[in-house]
C-alpha cells in the first residue's frame, strides 16, 4: 500500500505544483486594481470566530449580506466567509488566504483575532483590514488596520427600560413585591465589553423600576449552549423573574421559554438576535448592534479611495444600535411609547446612560480590585481612570468621568467601563 500511495502522492504533488504556477497570476491581479475598483467590484473577506448558528456571528453576517445587497455587491462572487476560525495563527492563515483570493477588504469579528489581523495587515499594506471589538488601531500605526464597535450601551439601556417596565407590570399585578424585582443576566466573560453591557442594561431597568436588582453569572465562553442553559438554571434558583444575556447561543431564551411554559413566567431580553420565534412566550425584545450602516460606510469609502477612520464607533443616531422587533404578546403599546421617549432623551442628550448620580459604587468589593476610581461620600463616582489605550500592562490611563457621566466609547470604540456597581451581584 505504501508504494501505491507514495506514487499517488507524488502524482498529486506534481499536479498541484503545476496548478500552483497558474494560480500565482490571479492573486496579484485584483489587488493591483483594488484602489480604483468600483463599489460593485470590491471583493470582501470575512473571518468569523463561529458561524451562522451563533448569534453574534449571525448578526455580523446578516449585516454584511444586507450591506452587499443594498450596494449591489454580488455575494456569490465577491464575498467570502471564513467560518469557525480560532483566535490563533489560524486567523492569520485565514487572512492570507483571503488576500490570495483577491480580497480588497478583510473583516474579523472577534477580540482575540486582533493580533493576527495586525500581522497580516503589516504584511499586505495594499489590503484594508477591519477588526471589530479590538483596541489597537489607534496605536498600531498602520494605515490599513482599523477597529470598530458600537455604543451598544445605549441599546442595552433601552432594552433595560423595557425590562424595568415589565417588572413594574409584575409588581402592579401583584405577581411579585417590589423587593422581588430581581433580574438575572448570563454574561460571557468578566470583561469590560460585558460589564459595560450589563451595567447599562441594569441602569435602564432601574431608571423606571428603582427597586430592581440584578444577579450576574459568567459562562467563561462566548458561545456554549449547554453552559448557558446551566447558567440560566443557576439564576432561576436565585429567584429571578426576568433574564437577559450577553452570550451568543440560544441557551438563555430556550431555558426561559421552558420555564415559562412550565408555568413560572420568566421573561427574556436578548442580544443581537430576535428571539420571538424561539421564545414566543418568554421573550420581550433584544438590543442589537446593526453593523449594516458601518459596512456601507466602509465599502463606499474604500471604493472611493477615501480615508477610513482608525476607530469607528456606530451609534444609536446612525442606526447602528437599536432594538429588534418587540414581542407584542409581552410588550404593551404604553411600554413602547415610554421607550421612544427615553430614546429621544438619549438622542438629545437629556438622558445619559452612565449618569453618575443614578448609581453608587462600593470600591472595596473584590470584583473592583483593579478599578482605579474615586467616589464621594454617597458612593457616586467622581473619577474613573479607564484603560482606554491598549498596552501590555493594562495601565489605567484616561480619565473618563466627564460632566457627571462616565464617557463610554469616547476614547475608543470598544467599551472600557469595568466597574461593578451597587445593585449588581455576581454569582
Amino acid at each position, binding site marked *: *500500500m*505504501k508504494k*501505491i*500511495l507514495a506514487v499517488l*502522492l507524488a502524482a*498529486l*504533488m506534481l*499536479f*498541484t*505544483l503545476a*496548478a*500552483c504556477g497558474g*494560480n*500565482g497570476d490571479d*492573486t496579484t491581479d485584483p489587488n493591483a486594481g483594488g484602489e480604483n475598483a468600483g463599489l460593485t467590484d470590491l471583493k470582501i473577506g470575512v473571518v468569523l470566530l463561529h*458561524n*451562522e*448558528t451563533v448569534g453574534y456571528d449571525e448578526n455580523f453576517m446578516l449585516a454584511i449580506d444586507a450591506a452587499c445587497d443594498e450596494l449591489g455587491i454580488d455575494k456569490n462572487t465577491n464575498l*467570502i*466567509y*471564513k*467560518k*469557525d476560525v*480560532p*483566535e*490563533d*495563527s489560524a486567523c492569520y*492563515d485565514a487572512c*492570507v*488566504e483571503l488576500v*490570495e483570493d483577491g480580497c480588497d477588504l478583510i473583516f474579523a469579528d472577534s*477580540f*482575540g483575532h486582533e*493580533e493576527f489581523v495586525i500581522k497580516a495587515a503589516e504584511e499586505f499594506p495594499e489590503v484594508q483590514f477591519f477588526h471589530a471589538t479590538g*483596541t489597537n488601531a489607534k496605536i498600531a500605526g498602520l494605515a490599513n488596520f482599523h477597529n470598530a464597535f458600537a455604543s451598544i450601551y445605549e441599546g442595552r439601556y433601552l432594552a433595560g427600560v423595557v425590562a424595568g417596565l415589565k417588572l413594574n407590570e409584575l409588581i402592579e399585578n401583584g405577581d411579585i413585591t417590589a423587593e422581588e424585582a430581581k433580574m438575572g443576566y448570563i454574561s460571557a*466573560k*468578566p*470583561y*469590560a465589553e*460585558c*460589564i459595560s453591557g450589563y451595567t447599562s442594561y441594569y441602569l435602564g431597568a432601574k431608571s423606571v423600576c428603582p427597586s430592581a436588582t440584578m444577579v450576574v453569572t459568567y459562562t*467563561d465562553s462566548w458561545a456554549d449552549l449547554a453552559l448557558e442553559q446551566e447558567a440560566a438554571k443557576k439564576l432561576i434558583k436565585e429567584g429571578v423573574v426576568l433574564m437577559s444575556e450577553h452570550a451568543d447561543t440560544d441557551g438563555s431564551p430556550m431555558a426561559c421559554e421552558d420555564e415559562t411554559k412550565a408555568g413560572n413566567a420568566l421573561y427574556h431580553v436578548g442580544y443581537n438576535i430576535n428571539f420571538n420565534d424561539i421564545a414566543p412566550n418568554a421573550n420581550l425584545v433584544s438590543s442589537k448592534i446593526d453593523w449594516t450602516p458601518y459596512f456601507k460606510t466602509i465599502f463606499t469609502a474604500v471604493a472611493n479611495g477615501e480615508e477610513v477612520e482608525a476607530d469607528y464607533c456606530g451609534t444609536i443616531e446612525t442606526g447602528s444600535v437599536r432594538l429588534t422587533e418587540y414581542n407584542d404578546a409581552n410588550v404593551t403599546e404604553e411600554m413602547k411609547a415610554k421607550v421612544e421617549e427615553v430614546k429621544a432623551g438619549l438622542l438629545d442628550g437629556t438622558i445619559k446612560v452612565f449618569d453618575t448620580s443614578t448609581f453608587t459604587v462600593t470600591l472595596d468589593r473584590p470584583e473592583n480590585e*483593579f478599578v482605579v476610581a474615586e467616589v464621594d461620600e454617597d458612593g457616586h463616582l467622581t473619577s474613573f481612570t479607564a*484603560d482606554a489605550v*491598549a498596552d*501590555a500592562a*493594562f495601565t489605567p490611563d484616561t480619565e473618563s468621568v466627564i460632566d457627571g457621566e462616565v464617557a463610554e466609547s469616547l476614547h475608543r470604540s470598544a467599551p472600557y467601563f*469595568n466597574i461593578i456597581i451597587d445593585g449588581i451581584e455576581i454569582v
Partner: protein
Amino acid sequence: MKVKTAKEPMIRIAKRTELSTGLSMGIRVGSIVIALLACGLVLLLITNGKISFGDIYSQMLEGAFGTARRIKITVRDTCALLCLAVALAPAFKMRFWNIGAEGQALVGALASCIVVKLCPDLPVALLLLVMFIASVVAGALWGVIPGYFKAKIKANETLFTLMMNYVAIQLVKFFVVLWEKQKGAGVMSTLTTGKLPQLFGVDYGWSIVIILVITVLSYVYMKYSKQGYEIAVVGESENTARYIGINVNKVIVRTMAISGALCGLAGFLLVSGTHHLVKSDIVGGNGFTAIIVAWLAKLNPLTMILTSFFVSFLDIGTAKIASSCNLNDFASDVVVGVALFIILASEFFINYRVIFNKRAKEGK
C-alpha cells in the same frame, strides 16, 4: 414465517484465515477511493449544487496545494497530527489506552509559555532549549502519572488519562487569566520571543524536520530495540512478559513517559513554531484525531505519515470548499468522519469474509 430454519442464515460472517498482501492492500486502497468518492457525494449534497462533482476535488487539491504557502500549511498540519500519532503509538502497542494526548500536549505548550514568561531575556537559542526540555518533562509527567497508577494499583488508564486532559485545560485557563491582554477577555498576547526561526528559509522548517526525525527514530525504537520488543510483549500478554522476566510495571511507566514526552514535544512545537501563545483549545482535538490516525496506520510510525496526511488533506480540502460554498466547520467534521468510517470499515473486510448462503453450501 418465510424463514424455516435458523440453521442456514442468508449471510454468514467468517474470520479470514489468510489473505494475500496484494488483496488486503487492494481493499485498503479501494476503501480510500470509496471514502474520497463518498466525501465528494456528501459535499455535493450539502452544497446544494453550488459546485460540481469534479470541482470538489480540484478545489480540495487547490486548498491543500494551490500555492507554495498552502503546501507549507498542509505539511505543517500533517506534522502536527503526525507528532501526536507517533507519540501514542508505543502506548497503544502496549495496549495502554492513552486518551490523554490532548492534555499531555497542552501541558507541554503551557510549560513552554511559562519558560518564556519567566526568563524572556535568555538568548533565543538557549531559551528554545529550556522551553524544549520543560515541555518534554511536563508532557512526560502528564503521561507518567496515569502510567504509575496503572502499574501500582491497576487504575483504569482510559479514564485517568481522559481526566488529566481536563486538569490540563483548567491549568491553562488559570495561566491565561494571569497573562491575559485585557482584564476578563480570556486571551493572551502572543509571545515576543522563544520563536523557532526559519530553517533553510522555510517557515515551520524546524517543526517539520524534528517531527520527521522523531517519526523515524520511533519506528526504529519500536521495531528494532529491546525496549520496543518489551512493549510489544507486554501488549500481547502481561503474563508472558512476566514469565520471561520483563518488569511489566517498569515498562508501563517508561513507555508512558515516552508517550507523554513526545506529546509534550508536540506542545513545544505548537507554541514555538506555530501559534506563539497557549489557550485551552490550542491542540484543537488533534490529541483525539491522532488516536484514529495511529490505528489506521496499524501503529506503524512510517505509515502514519500517510494517514495523518490523508486526514489533514481532507480537513484542509473541505475547509476550502466550505469557504467557497458558504458552509461552516461542521461540514469538514462530517466529511472527515465519513471518510474515516469507511476506511475503518475496510479493516472489517480484511479480517472477515462475508459468505452468502449459496456459496456456503458449495464451500467446505
